[in-house]
């Protein structure tokens, strides 16, 4: 019932581009889409990518928390990325979100994304800092933008994404 795409086994461009110079091998990122916006998270922090899951709502939790789900006996707190990034809620009837499970501080969190793309190495030469005009909410959670295949990826800082609510 859970589509268990281990990031390590994900087929994709990294294999074909194996011969990148060492200093610019880039960090490997996982691309994902939130409300049509292309984003990326460092692949190293990603534990699992899951298909739609049964999510238990948690009453009184911060609005960004969508609920919790069961990942092979571990309880994962699901974060609604749309809400966290101030994007409009998912339309009714839209396919259920995918879970990008990350580990932070010994706890597992699932970043609910509309679609999960591929694992790509991003090179420092393609990186650019956050444009100063970026929405403050985005600036807070973004490490910068990357050009990739003619589109701009927003690199999410997982730690900051999870820093909300009363800690």
């Amino acid at each position, binding site marked *: 019932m859970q589509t268990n795409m281990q990031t390590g086994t994900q087929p994709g461009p990294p294999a074909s581009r194996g011969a990148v110079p060492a200093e610019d091998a880039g960090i490997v990122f996982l691309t994902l889409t939130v409300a049509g916006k292309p984003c990326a998270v460092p692949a190293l922090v990603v534990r699992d990518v899951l298909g739609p899951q049964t999510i238990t709502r948690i009453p009184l939790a911060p609005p960004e928390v969508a609920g919790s789900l069961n990942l092979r006996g571990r309880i994962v707190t699901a974060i609604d990325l749309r809400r966290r990034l101030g994007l409009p809620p998912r339309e009714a009837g839209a396919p259920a979100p995918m879970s990008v499970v990350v580990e932070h501080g010994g706890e597992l969190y699932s970043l609910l994304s509309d679609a999960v793309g591929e694992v790509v190495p991003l090179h420092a030469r393609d990186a650019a800092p956050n444009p100063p005009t970026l929405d403050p909410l985005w600036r807070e959670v973004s490490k910068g933008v990357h050009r990739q295949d003619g589109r701009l990826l927003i690199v999410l800082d997982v730690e900051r994404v999870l820093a909300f*609510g009363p800690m």
Partner: protein
Amino acid sequence: MDDLLADFLTETNEGLVALDAALVKLERCPDDRPTLSEIFRLVHTIKGTCGFLGLSRLEHVAHAAENVLGKYRDGSLVVTGDGITLVLSSLDRIKMIVSGIERTGSETAGDDQPLIAALDAASEGRSPPPAASAPEVSLAVEVAPEPAEIAAPILRAETPPLAEPESSSGTSLAPQTIRVTVDVLEDLMTLVSELVLTRNQLMQLVRASGDNAFAVPLQRLSHITTDLQEGVMKTRMQPIGNAWAKLPRLVRDLSLELGKKIELDMRGAETELDRQVLELIKDPLTHMVRNSGDHGLETPAQRRAAGKPDAGRIILNAYHEGGHIIIEVGDDGRGLPVERIRQKVLANGLATEAELAGMAEHEIQRFIFRAGFSTAAAVTAVSGRGVGMDVVKTNIEKIGGTIELRSREGRGTTFIIKIPLTLAIVSALVVAAGGERFAIPQIGVLELVRVGGGGGAAVERVNDTPVLRLRERLLPLVSLATLLRLDAVPEGNGDAAFVIVTQVGPHVFGIIVDRVFDTEEIVVKPVAPILRHVTMFSGNTILGDGSVIMILDPNGIARATGVGADDLGEDQAAAAIANARSNARTAMLLFRAGDATPKAVPLGLVARLEDIAAEQIEMSAGHPVVQYRGKLMPLIPIGGHWMPPEPGARQSVLVFNERDRALGLMVDEILDVVEERLTIESQQDQPGFLGSAVIAGKVTEVLDCAYWLHQAGEDWFGPEARQQASARVLIVEDSAFFRNLVVPTLSSVGYEVTAVDDAMAALRLREAGHSFDIIISDIEMPGMDGFAFAAAVREGGPWRDLPLIALSGRAGAADVARGREAGFTDYVGKFDRGAVLRSLADCLAHVGA
């Protein structure tokens, strides 16, 4: 065999194994300094420990061997094969003696003298005496298994124990212990927890699919899992005595420091509980024992004066009860000083005097669990440092436990702690509310009540607050869906719901849920850090069907709803005698009569509620009466136009009692009993009513009882009362409601009544030269209270010798005593009209005599 000896044996066996290897290594390279030091250290340790344990045989052998090794180490003796052999033979002797201890618990008898002599000789550089040197080689090679072949005289003495090597390994008395780090046990426990969850999941799947092929092996798996769970749980169990180990010393130090004699009585130290729980209660327990010694127990002089033995006792008692462990920490000291607590509560503004007045003693005592509360007048080095019982309570609640106290002044205080045996796996009830499922630990659940949906109990509302009448108790309810801000989901089963009756400390309340499923063993897992602030949950877990579920925390729910905040418990306030202060709550009976406006009467005035069959109502001289308890009871309709009920119907009647007489007020419908602040908003001219008040959110007319009682006839108040006419009575009462109730009552029997609304006004009357025959005063009044007023009256002046009657909502023995001390002649409960009249008559008669 005691623990110390068992530990020693384990340690020594480990050491001996290491020694064997090291000695052989030393023989090969005699100049290996580190090995030599290691050997010396190991033998030295064995010698030291057995000396400590009083194992003299072992000690002597080890000592002799140590001497030889000491010489080797400092280089004064050259390491030789013979010497090593000799040392090895001494190790064999040590092993032999150790195995003897394992079997019998003590050292077996035997002669080690030849061996020791040989060792001593070696250490002095002499060649060993022939007796010892002869068997050297065989000793080194044949370590023990075939004693028959060892002809050596030095081993002869040990032949009996060696003759049964099989039994020594098979039926050894020594607990075969190994050392395992706590982490390993914790990991095991986690794995078992997961296994339990997986088992539950499998069971559920099989049940759902009805596939019998798996049923039997799964049953087997289930049993094994349960056994494994119990087994692993056992490895975590430790006797509570471990947590108490430091207490005797602590109490001894305490007694020296405080100059008190203290005996510590520890019972049930062998009671076992999970080591995680044990760790968590260690500190609270220590704190409580310290408190008992410091605050609880008196000095020897005080104890002698109180007729108690010099030495105070602190009693610790632990025992199992159900799935819980109960720990009592008690002392036979002075008990909790209720009066001091009361003053402190007032000084700290934790409650008002009025609230305190309505509280029972044990409720006031519970204030010690509030933050920042310490009754110790002086802060001693021992306790009273601001970390008080509130911390203890919080810590105990954190692990799902509860704490209660029993205290009697002069007799001592006992705290009763109830905690779950283990935190890891708990039994929980799965419920649903607002379309979501939750687990609630069964420790807090007293009972389940099905409500609504036709028949049985029903949820009623007091000013929109749901309550449940359960066996004569008014149970406050909280709706889980509302509390958790969930949308109410129409369940299709009408209004049917369940109430989970829960107890937190002394507070009992009900949680309304939509459905109740099953009980399940759950493994409590902590919630993610971003959810820690939601105090309604104690954790989360994964159910058998694989879904995640939140675990409710009854303590958190109680706190969120104000039920268990340790302030005025609403249910207790209701149980207290209705306190009729104008700003205090009064139990009111709500009913409908005549028109649609609800009407109210203080419940305390109503003797009984009756439902009389229409056929029983008869007419006498044009008035309805009923035969009631062998007498005729007049029935008076409220609302003017009374129509006799249809045959077969029933008539609701409020019965008022006066000695052997009864009067019934006929009403249309009895609505409810509510607890409300009674403030009469508007006075009105309508006879029979004092005015209107907002009760239960609705405008309600408050009944003027005196008027209606008067309707029953002139002689209602009885002939004796009427004889007391024409005395002048001053009533001091701040509540308009009571003035309106008492004044007509007294006027109607002929007293000449003057009423004022506070003590100062009364004293102004005194200054103005008014004179009265008797004074009736309320106790709880704003400004000058009844006690101060009585003191002012008794102080001097024209009223000094007047009889004074205290009128109060509370008329317990203690209150009466306090009233008399303040100068009151008599003390009467507010609602006891008969007693008021009797007291007036008595006091006046006394003055007249």
